[in-house]
Structure formats: C-alpha cells, structure tokens
C-alpha cells in the first residue's frame, strides 16, 4: 500500500504546480492585460490636428499644412502600367523598382510608405487614377508650416518618432510624428492632442474580421492645444536680422515676469527647411555643419566666460557682505599685482593711475584692480578661503547661475560656479583668493550661458529678484499656472545695494564706452565686456579675438526689457554688442528706429565677422604663426 503513495503524491504535487502557474499567468499577470493590447485587435488611428503656435501679440508662428503619402501593401499589388504610374509620381522606373523591392523585403503584408509627402498638384492627378493601381493608396498627413521664417531654435521641428521612443512610449507608433526640438518637444503633450482610435478584430494572418466589440473601445481624435509664446516675433526677427554675418546669441527677458521676449542664435535657419520632403536632406547639411553649428542654440547652450558683466555680481556681493561700501577707495596702477612674481599681475585699462577709484567709477570704467580687491576681501572675509569661497558661491548661485535655470525649453547648460570644494580638490587646499583672482573679472573658472546672464540682468533690473525665464505664456488661451514661473525667486542681495550698482551701469551708456549708442529719451543701463578666449592648436594654447559681450536693461526705472548679448570674436563689447542691444531696445520700446540712428543699424548689418571665423577654421597654421 505504501508504494502507491508516491503516485498520489506526484499527482497532487503536479496539480499544485499547475494551478499555481495558472494563478500566476492568469490572475497575477492576466489582471493587467489591457484587452485592446491583444494581438487580436488591430487599431487604426485618426490623427488630430497639431496645435498652432502664436507669439505674444497673437501673431501666427506655426500652422499646419496637408501632405500626401503614397502607401503600398506589396501583397495586394497587381500588374500595373509602371510607366504611367512613374510619370504620375514623377519618379523613374529604377526608383520604382527599388522602392517596391524595399517594401516587399520589409513586410509584404504591411501597409507602408512608398513615396513620402507628395506635392499637392501631383496628388490631384494621382487621386483620379489611383483605382487603376491596386495595392496603392493615399494617406493624408498633417505637417508643419511656418509663416514667419524665423525663431527656428525656439519652435523646433517634428519628425518621425525613433524606434526607441516608439518602444518606450505606448502612445507612439512607428512612423508617427513627434516633437524633436524646441517647444515642439517641450510641449509635445499639449500640441499633439489625442489620437482617435478605431479597433478592429483580426486573425493571426492580419486579416480584419470585423469591428472589435462594436466599437466599445473606440474614441474620436482630440485636436492639439494652441500655444502662445512669450516671444515678440517682431523683436525676434529684428534681432536675427541684425545678427546676420555674426555668430552669437541674444536673450531678451521681461524682468517683471521672466517672459523671454527674444531668444536669438546666429547663424540659424529657416524652420520651413525642416518640414516635409526636404527635411531629410536639409537636416543632414544643417547637423553636419560643425563649424558654424546652425542647430546649436547659442542663447541657451553656448558656454562663455561672462567677462566684465560679472563684476556687477561681485560688486553686489561685496556690498552685501559689507567688505566695501560706495565710498571704499581702491587704487589702480595699470593693473593689479596679486603675487610677488612678475607674471602675477593683472593688467587694467581703466586709465586712472594712482587715484582713488570708487564703485561708480569702477563700474563705468570697468576697473579690474577694483574688483580684484573686492573679490579678495570677499574670499578672505572668513577664516579660510574655502569658507569665503562657499559664501561667495552661494551668493552667485542665488542669481540662477551655475545650474539649469528651469526654463521651459529642452536644451541648456549648467555653466559653472566654483565653490570651496572645487579648489580644495584641484589645489589640495593650498590656495587663496589670489589663486583664482580671475573670477573677480568674470574670467577664471566661472562659466555662464547667455540666458543665465540675461537672467542676472533681469534680477538687477528688479533690484533683487527674478522670475524663472520661460517661453510659453498661454496654453489653449489659459495663462500658465506653474508656480515655477509665477513665483519670484529672491537673490541673497538686499534691495538697497542695487541702486549704486545700477547707477554705475547707467554711466556706461551715458558717458562710458557705449555712450555712442545711447538713445534719446530712453535710459539704458548696462555693462559691456570683452572676453578673452583661447583654443588649442596642435597642443598649444592660443589666444583668439575677444568675444564681445553686453548686458543691459531699459528703461532704468520700471525696466521693460533685460538683455544679454554675446558676439563670438566680436572684439570690444562697445563696438558690436552695444549698438545691437541699443537698436533692439529702441525697436521694442518705440516700435521703430529713429532716422538719426539708421546709420547704426546699417553699420551693424554691414558688420560681417565671417572672415575672422573662416580664418580661424581654415588656417590654424597661420594663426599659430601669428602668435609667435
């Protein structure tokens, strides 16, 4: 009798195993299976219209247009008059055979694109005769249309979703369009709307055998939401116009809201180039231009040393920390000696030799010695330089520097604001303020992007706070609610310290280096700068022509617009950056350029720096020779 227990036991065991396994696959796994995700259900999509994009004044920036794809189901293709078909599609026979073979190879039973985005005229002819060509049909598609050939870096573009995304995100099927850059990707979820779905029941041979559950799961498409940008398209276009022949970035922000009024990068491209049939070809040439990088948004991503405008931040920190006041005098002897060795000397071009320099003058004359002294005092205020450095770093970071600002565009760079730890690491604790004295004048380790600098300017214009810069004003005509953009962020500097600094900045345009670009009736407040920059050629460090830089806001009271302008290798800040800023301010605040200032505009349009850029790229050898 005992021996029979084995079989009883095994039967019982197998029963338990089977039921446990069935529980696992049916109850545990089965519970989260969506019925329409089954292979037995074929889903056909109804595509909604993508949302439109407007500028702050309601001007249409992005619209839609129809395009027609010729589709093929290779299995259903019957004998056809190839010659006629080719002439209708405007392709040659070899092309036809190549495309046909490709489709057959991919999947003979699947509908797939045979010829993309047919011209409207060709479509009309083809449609009449299409019944003759079995296995081919037309699929309507909505593609983008850009009435204004500008702001490509902001608007971005859409293209077919890539394989990875299609796999990861359930919403997308291969071949569908998705935002790839700019607001198209940032606000994809709003712009795209919701696809409508129709479910069909099919068997394993992919044959449709009727509607699935009488359309129980079907849905209608919901059109995308329209978006209103904070951009002023007039200003944007004007800025791009002025930037022709130059490389660089301009960011203009409305200080009272953080709204980005213009975000210019040069060189740029016509957004219509990234639409439809021409996109593939154009995107290759645009992305492959690694010299001028038209796809690189310099306003958001270019990292430069901030140069002289950074002195403003140091001045504010000095005042806040109490290491200087408006009357603290420093002396300049054509430069500042920060060490005993001969090369440990920072030159200065303020031209005030041996006389006391106070804050106001220091800013308007951009005295390096003054800010080096100030910086030294800030760092040495605490017991050890590391603590002083941390304290300084925290002040600087409160302006939104050294990190992503949090704006609503998908690209950017953190920049760099060093702290005590940073130097402890690289100098093994053997350092002091003199080691990184270049930070005083915005050269050393400090790295910023134009939008960060524009934001600093907005914070100064607001006397101590700023709103996170953002590009979208309204979604579906509803003002954005995100507290990220509606709540002010405070800097660590008290309000009263801003007045003397702004006063100093005022002199720059009133009587200082940029005074020739001053506009009658508008008080521009700003700070120019030139940034030394170097490249390495064959392992040797080489100095290139300085970057031209400027930050400014206007008017002085109740500022309406704050700027950061960066011109690559533009020389002195006052020669190119200042006039461009001044012209844009005039355009924005008054709507036009006064006659007596037209010459400035013309001069800017004529300024072409490409001979400098080309020289650098084409002949690094001559450059090398020149520096010897």
């Amino acid at each position, binding site marked *: 009798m005992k021996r*029979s227990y084995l079989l009883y036991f095994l039967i019982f065991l197998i*029963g338990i195993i*089977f039921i446990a*396994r069935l529980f696992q696959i049916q109850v545990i796994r089965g519970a989260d*299976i969506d019925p329409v995700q089954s*292979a037995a259900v074929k889903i056909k999509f109804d595509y909604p219209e993508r949302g439109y994009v407007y500028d702050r004044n309601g001007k249409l920036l992005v619209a839609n247009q129809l395009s027609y794809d010729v589709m093929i189901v290779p299995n259903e293709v019957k004998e056809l008059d190839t010659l006629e078909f080719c002439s209708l599609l405007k392709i040659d026979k070899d092309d036809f055979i190549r495309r046909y073979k490709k489709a057959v190879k991919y999947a003979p039973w699947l509908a797939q694109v045979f010829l993309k985005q047919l011209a409207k005229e060709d479509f009309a002819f083809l449609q009449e005769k299409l019944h003759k060509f079995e296995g081919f049909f037309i699929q309507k598609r909505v593609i983008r249309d850009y009435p204004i050939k500008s702001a490509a870096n902001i608007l971005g573009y859409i293209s077919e979703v890539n394989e990875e995304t299609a796999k990861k995100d359930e919403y997308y099927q291969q071949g569908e369009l998705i935002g790839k850059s700019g607001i198209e990707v940032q606000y994809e979820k709003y712009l795209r709307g919701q696809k409508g779905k129709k479910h069909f029941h099919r068997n394993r041979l992919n044959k449709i055998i009727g509607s699935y559950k009488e359309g129980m799961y079907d849905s209608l498409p919901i059109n995308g939401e329209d978006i209103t940008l904070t951009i002023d398209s007039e200003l944007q276009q004007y800025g791009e116009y002025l930037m022709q022949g130059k490389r660089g970035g301009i960011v203009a922000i409305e200080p009272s809201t953080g709204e980005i009024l213009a975000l210019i990068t040069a060189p740029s491209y016509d957004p219509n180039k990234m639409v439809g049939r021409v996109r593939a070809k154009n995107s290759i040439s645009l992305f492959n231009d690694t010299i001028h990088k038209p796809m690189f948004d310099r306003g958001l991503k270019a990292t430069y040393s901030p140069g002289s405008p950074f002195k403003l931040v140091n001045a504010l920190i000095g005042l806040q920390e109490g290491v200087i006041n408006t009357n603290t005098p420093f002396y300049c002897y054509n430069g500042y000696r920060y060490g005993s060795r001969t090369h440990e000397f920072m030159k200065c071009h303020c031209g005030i030799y041996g006389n006391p320099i106070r804050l106001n003058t220091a800013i308007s004359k951009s005295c390096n010695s003054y800010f080096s002294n100030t910086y030294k005092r800030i760092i040495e205020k605490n017991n050890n330089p590391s603590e002083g450095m941390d304290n300084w770093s925290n002040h600087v970071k409160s302006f939104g520097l050294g990190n992503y600002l949090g704006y609503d565009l998908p690209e950017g760079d953190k920049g760099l604001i060093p702290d005590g730890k940073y130097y402890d690491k690289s100098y093994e604790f053997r350092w002091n303020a003199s080691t990184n004295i270049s930070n005083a004048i915005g050269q050393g380790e400090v790295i910023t992007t134009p939008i960060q600098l524009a934001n600093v300017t907005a914070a100064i214009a607001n006397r101590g706070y700023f709103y996170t810069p953002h590009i979208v004003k309204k979604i579906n005509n509803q003002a954005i609610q995100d507290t990220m953009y509606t709540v002010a962020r405070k800097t660590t500097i008290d309000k009263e310290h801003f007045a003397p600094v702004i006063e100093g900045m005022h002199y720059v345009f009133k009587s200082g280096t940029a005074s020739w670009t001053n506009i009658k009736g508008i008080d521009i407040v700003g700070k120019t700068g030139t940034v030394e920059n170097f490249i390495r050629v064959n392992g040797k460090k080489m100095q290139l022509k300085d970057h031209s830089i400027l930050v400014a806001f206007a008017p002085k009271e109740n500022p309406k617009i704050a700027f950061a302008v960066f011109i690559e290798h533009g020389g002195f800040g006052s020669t190119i950056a200042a006039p461009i800023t001044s012209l844009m301010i005039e355009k924005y605040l008054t709507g036009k350029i006064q006659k007596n200032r037209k010459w400035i505009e013309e001069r800017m349009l004529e300024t072409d720096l490409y001979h400098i850029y080309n020289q650098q790229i084409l002949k690094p050898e001559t450059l090398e020779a020149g520096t010897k």
Partner: protein
Amino acid sequence: MRQERNNIFLGVDWVLVLLYVLLIGFGWVNIYAASFTEESSTIFDFSTKYGKQLLWIVLSIPMIIFILFINGKFYERFSSIFYLVSLVSLVGLFIFGKEINGAKSWYNFGGMSLQPSEFAKAFTALALAKLLSDRKYNLNLIKNQIKAFIVIFTPALLIAIHDAGSAIVYLSFFFVLNREGLTLIYFVLGISAIVLFLLTILFGVKVLIISLLSIISIYVLYNAYRNQRFLRFNWIKILVTYLISTAFIFGVDYTYNNVLQQHQRDRFEVLLGKTSDTKNIGYNSNQSIKTISSGGFKGKGFLQGDRTQGKFVPEQHTDYIFSTVGEEWGFIGTSIVIILFIMLLFRIISRAEKHNNKFGRIYGYGVASVLFLHLIINVGMVIGLLPTVGIPLPFFSYGGSSLWGFTLLLFVFIKLDAHKSYDW
C-alpha cells in the same frame, strides 16, 4: 450469473463515468469554440472539426457498451494477442502508413484516419499487467526487469521512429513498475539524468562539470569530517561517480549538439529562456501563454475569446486545446479542469488498490500513469513549463483516435473494476 450478464452496467463505478462525461463534454465545448467560424451553422455539420468530434463521441458509445459487454477475463487472457496485434499495426505503418504533419503514424481507411499508437498504450498496459501479475514473476530479478522493459519499449521505439513525443508517454509505465516493487534507483537515476540534461544545456559543459565535481567533493569531504575517517574512503565508488557524471555530461552535450535536430534544440532553448524569439520557434508557446493569460480570473466567456476566435494559437483544437479553456473560462475553468483530472486519477488509483487481483490493479495503475503523464506533458507545454511536445490532452483534444484510445484505456479498467465485485 445470467442476470448479471444481462446487466452490463452492474458494478460500474459511476464516479469514473461521470468524470469521463464531464471531461469529454467540456472538451467538446472548447473544441467548438476553437474551431467555430461565423459561416458554420449547426453542431451536426460534419465538415467542421466540432461536428466530427461530436460524431466520434457518439460513436464511442457503442464501443463502450461493447467493452462492458465482454467478460473481464477476456482482457487478461487475450492481452498478449492484443499486444502483438498492436505491434504489428505499428510495424505496418512503415509500409501502409499515411503521412500527416510530417509523421507517418496514420492508417487511412477511406477518408478516415486512425492512429494505432493511440490504441497501443492500452494494449501495452494490458500486456504489462499480464506479465507482472504472473505468480512466478519477481521484479527483483534483473532478468524479469529486462522482460518488463522489453514489453514497454518495443512499442515505444516503433512509435519514436515517427513521433518521438508520443513515445515519451511510455515512460509512465515506470510508475507501474515502481508500484510493483521495482527498486527506486531507476527512478532516481532517471530524474537526475533529466535534471543534469537540462542543467547542461542551460549552463554548458564546463560550468556543470566543475560545479558537479565540487559538489561531490564537498559531500565526500563532509562525510570524511563527520565520520573522522580521512583517507579511508570507498575510492572506487567515488571514482566511478566522478567518471559517470562527467561522461554523462559530455554525452548530453554531444547528443544535444549532434544528435538532436535544430527544431528540437530550439524548443529547449526557448523553454530555458536562452532565446526569446517570439516570432518563429517560440511562437506557439508564446501565443499559448498570452492566450491563457488574457483570460484572467473569470475568462472572457464562451465564444468570446478573441484570441481563440482570431485563431492565434496554432493547433489550438488539438494539442493546445487547454489554452481555449484558459481564455474563455479563465482561471476558474483551468483549475476546475486540473482538479477534475486529479479526481479522475485519484479515483482510478484508489479503485485499483482495492483489487484483490493483481492484473486489475496493475492495469489500473497503468491507466492512471499514462493519463497522468499526458496531463503533465500537455498542460506543462501549454502553460509554458515544459518544452513543446505534441501529445494530446486526454478526453479534451480533438481527434478520433486519441478519443477512442483513451476511452478504450479507461473503460477496460472500468470493466475490470466492475468485474472484480462478482467474478473472481
């Protein structure tokens, strides 16, 4: 006696009959769902799969009556002849066999195909029972063990030539031998061989040899430590264990790579998760699991299984019929079917154990074992626990031969069982 002769149902175990009817009936419902199309109308449409199956179910009734009508002793007395006839019919396949799905295991009688291997199981069980029930028979003798192996493996080999999967079922007779006193060593060796086989495929020769040898070594050292008997091992035993296991692993590797065919290798690799192709080799298994899974707890309802109706699982009415149960009747349906099978098997064993007569007991054991192995292999495959082996689910799968084969197998036992109460 005469009265009893007239009442062929006397002593019949109605519980077994009821379980049989339930399984056949529910099986047919699922075959109906799996082969249903919109065009077909009545259930008596014999051009359809479910129509044919219904016909075979109906035709099995006279067969059952015939089986019950014959005196139980007849089966014992003529078991050798039945066995020989079935061997002849298997050999005859080489000459007269008709090829279906690549296997030459069918006879064709004017439009109707019969698969002799389905009947051979019952006759082998009878022959084995006859052999083992002999009073002079003692399973401890190697000579007798070999006799039993010959009875079991002759039909198995003849079947294996056409259809290796169906031959595996004959291994189930080891349960019978074990019950009748065969030493468990065969069993243990068999199980370890299977486990070693799978592990070798999964981890490769090197890893397995190293780990196996180290396990044996650790065991030996541990024993030495426990018994404080260093250096005084049974060296021969240890050496033989090392050698045999190493040789076996190399043998498996060789067989797997050189003897098995690619499609058989693929089945193992999919099962062991070494490849995850869901399009080609893993398609059936993957579709089957998805189909069962989609049924959830309650199932989608009769004829509501969209994957079944969409014909996603190949061979769903035959080998994969259990996936239809899974989709349309859910976890409730599948577990009820499993429980019904367990009840059937338990009932057969418990009835068999009550036989005073050895023949009836051994045959009953054979019936339970054959059904059990079919259940393990078929359901195990459908729910993705075992590699793909194409054998039917008893009473469920579509097919006249298998239906009659299993009916014959079961009802001969029911007859023997009924007989024991009045005739021995």
